């Protein structure tokens, strides 16, 4: 389960932009697994990420109302290991900032879709998680990637 916990923390960290909040929310996700395990046990991993997404969404809304966390999350940093090349570190830092800011600016559903896709979920699983049809997920991913274009490819933005 350690790998799933790490994946949930990574997903939540990307979603919220805040590693401490991500770990707290991941813990709460597993607390819920214990207290209220899924009735349908065929896809526990999807269940975990759906619960994590709901918690992150709630926390994000609260943070936005308070107007504090999102701003801090975008500005806070550093990466895990200092790379050997300072110029590369600066570049990576800048890209990371842009991507986090762009993710934070996406509608919640688009952010969920992109990040669940990164975690390897199928379009059907993503559709179930965000409440849409499987076929529309491709369109939503395309739209989200277009919205992220400025952050991913500054010259295109």
């Amino acid at each position, binding site marked *: 389960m350690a790998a799933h916990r790490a994946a949930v923390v990574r997903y939540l960290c990307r979603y919220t932009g805040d590693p401490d909040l991500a770990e707290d929310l991941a813990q709460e996700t597993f607390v819920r697994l214990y207290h209220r395990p899924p009735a349908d046990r065929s896809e526990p991993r999807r269940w975990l990420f759906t619960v994590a997404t709901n918690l992150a969404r709630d*926390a994000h809304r609260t943070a936005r109302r308070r107007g504090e966390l999102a701003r801090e999350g975008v500005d806070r940093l550093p990466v895990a290991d200092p790379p050997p090349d300072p110029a590369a570190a600066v570049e990576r830092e800048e*890209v*990371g900032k842009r991507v986090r800011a762009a993710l934070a600016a996406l509608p919640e559903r688009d952010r969920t879709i992109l990040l669940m896709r990164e975690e390897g979920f199928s379009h059907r699983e993503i559709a179930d998680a965000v409440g849409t049809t499987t076929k529309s997920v491709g369109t939503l991913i395309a739209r989200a990637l277009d919205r992220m274009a400025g952050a991913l490819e500054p010259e295109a933005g």
Partner: protein
Amino acid sequence: MTTMHLEDGALVRYLDEECDGDEQAAVRGHVTGCDACAGRLAEFERRSRTLKVALRDSDRPARGARPVPRPGLRAAAAVLVLLAIGGAVRPVRAWVLERAEALWTALTGGSEPVAPVGSVAPAQTAVSFVPADGPFTIELAGRQSAGTLSLEAVPGDTARATVLGGSGAESLVVLPGGLRIVNPPASTARYRIALPVRLGPVRVMVGGAAPRVFDPGGPPLEIDLGGR
């Protein structure tokens, strides 16, 4: 003649290998003869790859590997979590997580099923946590049928408590200033507690008996819990 281009959704499905058989072939056939759609497909592929790399590069280290965050932000995050989810008490979480791990194993068909109530099969329960600075106390409900409590010091900030050879009825509860071992009188479990060397003298209370003291700066301590 009008050229019909593919929808973006179809291109992404193709890229993600999510098309059904007919659509896969149709998209493949179309993009080989349509520069506009081939270009759009390449664009989605490039952006997907860039996003993957950017996310990976900007992932933050795990909590234990990072400097302690600013107190203000930690407080804000904690408040947000509590406000958002109504807040399970943090010290209880570690205990619950250990149970969740067993439940997860059972859910996913792993080889370590949750021990049923009354099971006499040897069970192993463990919990890791970071004790706060200040006094630390280990409490046991009382003596038990047999078993020992072993205490040792370890480097770093993380403590680990392990139940060995238990019946599944034993529980570990992490408290703000200590650890509670809920041990039934019939238990024969052994408890191994590794504590950060930075802690001061640790009080060990077994039922109503006079407390023992474990000094993390000194030698390991083993307490016989049997004799009930």
